[in-house]
Each structure stands twice: as C-alpha cells, then as structure tokens.
C-alpha cells in the first residue's frame, strides 16, 4: 500500500519533469540534456528564498520564474544559433550546458545537501501506517500544474501557437505565428516546470548538485516509453515506471530497482520505438 502511494507520488513529480522535456522535444526537436540541471537549480533557488525567510510557496513561485528567465536566456544564446544544424549539435550543446550548470551549482552552493522544510508536517494513518500529508500535496499539486498546462495548450492563444508549431513549423510561420519566440517560450516553460518539481520534491530528498543527473535519465526513460513529444503518454509512463520501481524495491535495493525501468526502456525501444502509450501507427 505504501508502495502504491510512494509510486504515485514519485510518478507525478517525474511526470512533471518529463512533460517539460517532452514538450521541448515535441516543439523544437531538442533533446535537452540540461533539463535535470534546471530542475536542480530550481530547487536551489527555492532553498535561497527559504533561507532569506520566504515562505515555501514564495520559493516555489520565485524558483519557477527565475528558471523561466534562465531558460529563455539559455535558449537565445545556445540553441537559437544552432537552428537548422543537425540534432547532434543540440544534444552536444545541452550536454555542455548541463556540465556548466552542474558545476556552477557545486561552486555556488557547495557539496553539502540543503534541506527544504516541507510546508506541512502532518501525517495521517492508513492501514496502521503513518503517511505524510505533504507527499499527497505534492502529487495533487503536480497534477494541478499538468492540468493547467493541458488547459493552456488546449485553450490559450499561445497554447494553439505551440501546438501548431509542433505540428508544422513552416506553416505556423506562414500563419504569422512568431515561431522563434514560441521556441524560446517553450524552452522557458519546460524549465519552469522542472524548477517547480525541484522545489516540490526538495523536502523529500534534500538538494545537492547530483539531483540533475539523478532525475534526467529517468525522465528520458519516461519520455521514450511515453512516446517522444506525447504529453499524456509521458504522464502515464511516469506513473507506471515509478510504481514499477516502487514495487521492485520490495525485493531489491533501490539502486537495483532502477534496472527494472532500464529494462522496460530497452524492451520499449526494441518493440515499440514510438512509445508504449501511443496508438500503433497505421
């Protein structure tokens, strides 16, 4: 039962990180290696705000906005010049970026993990076990953010622009949609979502510079298993993988439980390279 709850909570956070990643891939064909670092920096910005006496919610907001701006700057400086070059170049550039950001965090904040105090410390009882309310809040908030994203994509002008750009970049431009700006916005938005997940998850794991590499590989797995660029698929895949790992950890160490999702990824890649949660193309 605890495994089920933990799996769901981890799954929602993972889904939040992965949906930013898959959004960026879907719109820009960019595999963002630095996505985990945006997640980590978001968490660090959160700790800074908390240290300055801000509340948890202020930290969440400030972290999202800061990383949104950082994302815009990164996109303009490193990715825009690479538009039209082969995808390899963007993979390499974001990989370089992840090195810089990761070591910047180490330099700025030091190697000792920082703690984010959870805004709720209450527990509730379920099947003779104490379960913290805060974890439930995380899952609900992540779901709310993703729902907001979905509504935004569905209804807002920018949402329609983003979807149009994802489907046909050239035609979108011919309809007067400012495609370069849409790219920047999507990268920033994806970053902001990663930052928000970082702050939300911070209280459970502690914040240090290895957060990025820790989550990016799993986010990649989620994105591939869910189908690259497919938001709904990513959410399903994230929950599925987290549940799988959560139950696997009953029988093995957490380090080995990761292998379960690795194996799932390889199986997916071999048999359904377009993603497990995508209808088979005709």
């Amino acid at each position: 039962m605890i495994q089920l709850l933990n799996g769901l909570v981890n799954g929602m956070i993972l889904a939040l990180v992965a949906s930013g990643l898959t959004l960026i891939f879907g719109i820009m064909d960019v595999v963002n290696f630095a996505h985990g670092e945006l997640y980590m920096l978001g968490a660090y910005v959160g700790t800074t705000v908390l240290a300055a006496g801000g509340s948890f919610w202020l930290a969440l907001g400030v972290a999202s906005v800061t990383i949104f701006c950082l994302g815009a700057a990164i996109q303009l400086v490193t990715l825009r010049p690479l538009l039209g070059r082969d995808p390899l170049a963007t993979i390499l550039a974001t990989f370089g970026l992840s090195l810089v950001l990761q070591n910047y965090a180490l330099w700025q904040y030091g190697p000792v993990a920082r703690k984010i105090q959870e805004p709720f410390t209450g527990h509730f009882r379920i099947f003779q076990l104490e379960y913290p309310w805060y974890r439930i809040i995380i899952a609900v908030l992540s779901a709310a953010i993703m729902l907001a994203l979905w509504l935004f994509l569905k209804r807002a002008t920018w949402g329609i622009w983003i979807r149009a750009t994802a489907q046909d970049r050239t035609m979108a431009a011919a309809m007067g949609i400012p495609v370069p700006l849409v790219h920047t916005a999507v990268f920033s938005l994806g970053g902001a979502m990663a930052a928000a997940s970082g702050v939300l998850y911070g209280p459970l794991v502690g914040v240090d510079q290895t957060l990025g590499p820790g989550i990016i590989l799993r986010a990649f797995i989620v994105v591939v298993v869910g189908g690259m660029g497919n938001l709904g698929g990513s959410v399903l895949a994230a929950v599925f993988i987290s549940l799988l790992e959560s139950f696997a950890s009953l029988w093995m160490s957490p380090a080995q439980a990761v292998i379960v999702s690795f194996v799932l990824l390889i199986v997916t890649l071999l048999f359904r390279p377009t993603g497990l949660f995508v209808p088979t193309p005709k």
Partner: protein
Amino acid sequence: MLAARDVHAFYGKSHILHGVSLEVRAGEVVGLLGRNGVGKSTTLKTIMGLVRPARGAIVFDGRDVTGVATHRLARLGLAWVPEDRRIFPSLSVWENLRTGLDRAGVGHAKRADLLEKVFRYFPLLAERRYQAGRTLSGGEQQMLAIARAMMLEPKIILLDEPTEGLMPRMVGQIREIIETLRQDGVAILLVEQSVPLTLAVSARVYIMEKGVVRHEAPAPALRADDAVIRRYLGV
C-alpha cells in the same frame, strides 16, 4: 503591390530559380503557369520567405521585404495556401482558424466578422468546427486552408494548385471562391495545372520555363490564341 525582381534561388546545390521577375497589382488575380518542376511553387515559397533568394529582391507594398522572416510577412498581409494544404492535423477546424485569427489588433467585432464571412463562404467548415484537421476530406482541407489564410485579412494570397486532386464539383467551388475573393479586393497569385481555370479567373498570366518567366500576357489574349499555351505547356 507585390513584385519579384530577378530572383535566384537554390535548393541545396541545385539552382531552381534563374532570375524570376513578376508583379501582382492590388486586387488583381494573376496566374502562374508552367510544366511540373519549372519552379512555380519555389517562386511562391521564395516570396513567402521560406526559401532565401540568393540574388534579387521581393518588394511588397513599396517595401523591400527580401529576407524578412515569414511570420512577419504573414502579419504584413501575405498569405500562403500551399500545394499540400498543410492543415495542422491534430488541431480542430476551429483551432486551425485561430492560428491566423489570434493576433494583435483583432477585436471582438472583427473576429466575429471574419468568422461569419468564412462560415458563409464555407458552411461545411462551420459544421465540422470541432473536428480534427486530419479527419477532413481533401476538398474540405482545401477549403480550410483557404479559410485559414483569409483569417490573416491578407492583401494577397499565394494560392498553390488549389484544385489538385479535387472532384470536379469542388473545382467549381474553388473557382467561385477565387471570384469572391477578387470581389473583396484580395489579390491572388495563382499557381495551377488547370489551364482553363487559370485563364478563366486571371486577369494576366505568366508562363514559366526552367526557372524563368518566359511569357507574360493578358488572359483574354491567351484564350483567343492558344499557340503560346501549346508551345510552353504542350496542351
């Protein structure tokens, strides 16, 4: 209003346009004829800023717009209806229209006006409003592509092979639409395989061969004398 002056363009290393010059006046329907692969579509794409001209200039509304980004051209009043229609497949009909409608300077009244107009021209689209673009038939997609372009309130529409693959009934409808647009004062640069249709709706016609404009004539003159048509198009 729109002019291409000695435009040269390349696809990779192959030289497609070898100095195309043409002009479209405000509110005028101009045909662009030629065999397959002579560079008609490329001419439209170059005007739209999708292919960067290696030499030459595009002038729109008295302004040199060579090298201006495509989305800015669209905002200036150039609309493009591509050969393969390029409907956004997972966007609904309504959302497809919104890609052109949601822009600065379109108030509520104007929005309603524009929508009322396209739904009057294309009642079918109103019915199919919430259907995804990919579920439309070829003819419906063509209508949507034209309707979507109209959302931009363009001064000129670059219309690439609008009747390709359509049933005769649909072809008649496209022809009516071109007429209506002309009456509304929208200029059209029409690329077509169908010579009779082009001659019927256009005021003037350019004939292209191997990446250059070889011949220019008023449509009535060509209707009277089909020797030129036979020479360049072999029909």
